[in-house]
């Protein structure tokens, strides 16, 4: 059949408005799903609160935190670990959304996303942003509870200045989750992610203890912590809460976001990615 592409064929493309509609639709669906899984929201909130109310209270007297930037006075241990717990919410949220991507893939929902005529990088980036938006709601809900526990930034502006840090670190951890979702073949393998990603990332970071303390105990572990992008997400949030910018952390988080997202997009690309190499969507 002679149907080679000729000049008479017109490519229609999409307008900016159509891109925005697609983006809004993806965010809207993610929000609806979040709304339908309220128990997920509660558990996402309970987890850091247990750390805050029990773990931190217990460790308060054991672990004194000296004056290190951005703090200009001695701070309570609860105050120290709050940024780490906010980052933990985002870490879990990022992994959860990757879990839901694996689930979607197994259930076929992923296919309805991927047959959309919009470019795949756009669809995946939109999904990532939607997931991050959901994690922001959780993070602020946690900060609201912490406020009543008298953990607050030096000025109310801190709640605003922390926002960009939360968005950026949320994107980084969501992109990491997306990358993992492309590598995990089946849902059952996800328990491994818990053991090999969430726990090491969380514990080998500055979330629970300042790095100088770690260095006293084990210099190589401190070095590992410094390499851990999660440490930088925590520090970015910690400084932003105090209306300051930690430029090193900003650079690391930004760089890691780009690398994770780009790799995830390549992994989901039909011609290059892993999807082609194995059977099943």
């Amino acid at each position, binding site marked *: 059949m002679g*149907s080679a592409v000729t000049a008479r*064929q017109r490519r229609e493309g999409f307008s900016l408005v159509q891109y925005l509609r697609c983006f809004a639709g993806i965010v809207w*669906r993610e929000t609806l*799903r979040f709304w339908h899984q309220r128990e997920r929201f509660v558990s996402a909130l309970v987890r850091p609160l247990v750390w805050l109310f029990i773990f931190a209270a217990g460790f308060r007297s054991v672990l004194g935190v000296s004056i290190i930037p951005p703090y200009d006075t001695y701070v309570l241990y609860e105050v120290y670990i709050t940024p780490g717990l906010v980052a933990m919410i985002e870490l879990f949220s990022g992994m959860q959304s990757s879990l839901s991507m694996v689930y979607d893939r197994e259930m076929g*929902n992923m296919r309805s996303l991927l047959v959309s005529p919009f470019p795949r990088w756009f669809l995946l980036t939109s999904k990532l942003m939607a997931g991050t938006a959901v994690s922001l709601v959780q993070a602020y809900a946690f900060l609201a509870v912490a406020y009543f526990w008298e953990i607050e930034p030096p000025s109310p502006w801190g709640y605003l200045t922390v926002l960009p840090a939360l968005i950026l670190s949320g994107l980084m951890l969501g992109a990491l989750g997306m990358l993992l979702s492309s590598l995990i073949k089946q849902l059952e393998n996800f328990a491994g992610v818990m053991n090999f990603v969430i726990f090491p990332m969380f514990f080998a970071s500055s979330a629970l203890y300042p790095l100088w303390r770690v260095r006293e105990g084990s210099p190589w572990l401190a070095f590992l912590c410094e390499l851990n992008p999660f440490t930088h997400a925590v520090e970015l949030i910690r400084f932003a809460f105090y209306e300051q910018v930690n430029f090193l952390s900003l650079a690391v988080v930004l760089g890691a976001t780009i690398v994770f997202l780009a790799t995830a997009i390549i992994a989901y690309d*039909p011609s290059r990615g892993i999807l082609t190499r194995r059977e099943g969507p």
Partner: protein
Amino acid sequence: MSRRLPEPVAVSGEQLGANALEVEGVSHSYGKRKALSDVSFHVRPASFCVLLGLNGAGKSTLYSLITHLYAVQKGTIRIFGFDVNRTPSEALRRLGVVFQARTLDLDLTVEQNLSYHAALHGISKREASFRAAAVLDEVAMAGRAGDKVRTLSGGQMRRVEIARALLHRPRLLLLDEPTVGLDVKARADILKHVRHLVGETGIGVLWATHLIDEVASGDNVVLLHEGRVIDQGHAAEVAARTGAPDIGAAFKKLTGVAGEGDRWDQP
């Protein structure tokens, strides 16, 4: 299920006489295992084409290639002249798909599912709800628009999936084993509806199945077996060529395997 669907948008600029779907010399391997070898066939606009093959014949792989889930490794797939590999966006926007697996979001309502799909095609909310009402009416599901998908029966979900696949007014509709797991009446309803669409709207349909009784004698049939097209043409022609009384017997003769479906059991 008989009222008129809104006419497909006139897609200007498409080459006149272009095939709805053109598969040319397509081969695909998963590592060393070859799933498709040198598959070629086409689907005309306003025609109902059955892709007949047993489970594992390569139908799902072929669908994954047409929907650009995997890149085409060898050969070409064109939808109304647009190469799926080179211009996926133009190809996909002319394509509606009903996958074998259920792909509706169970926790969302029927309307929310359609609305999400519309957004994925850049359709505005207002236009989407207008179109959703029309396509749901068409499959007699208008009364369930506000219900959660979880509460629907298997047949109703399939009808919603067909409605959803038509929401962006595609010109080619792919269905992958759409009647699997449905009762006799639901199967007949869906088949009848899709055949009706072909006549009414001029959409091209590729219907993949392993159920021989879904083939009508006037249909175009592509027989896929172990990743190869073993015969194709009008069902009656294929049967005549093989010297078999009907397409079921022809398929059995060509493949040496008995499949499923009513007529299989009759010698």
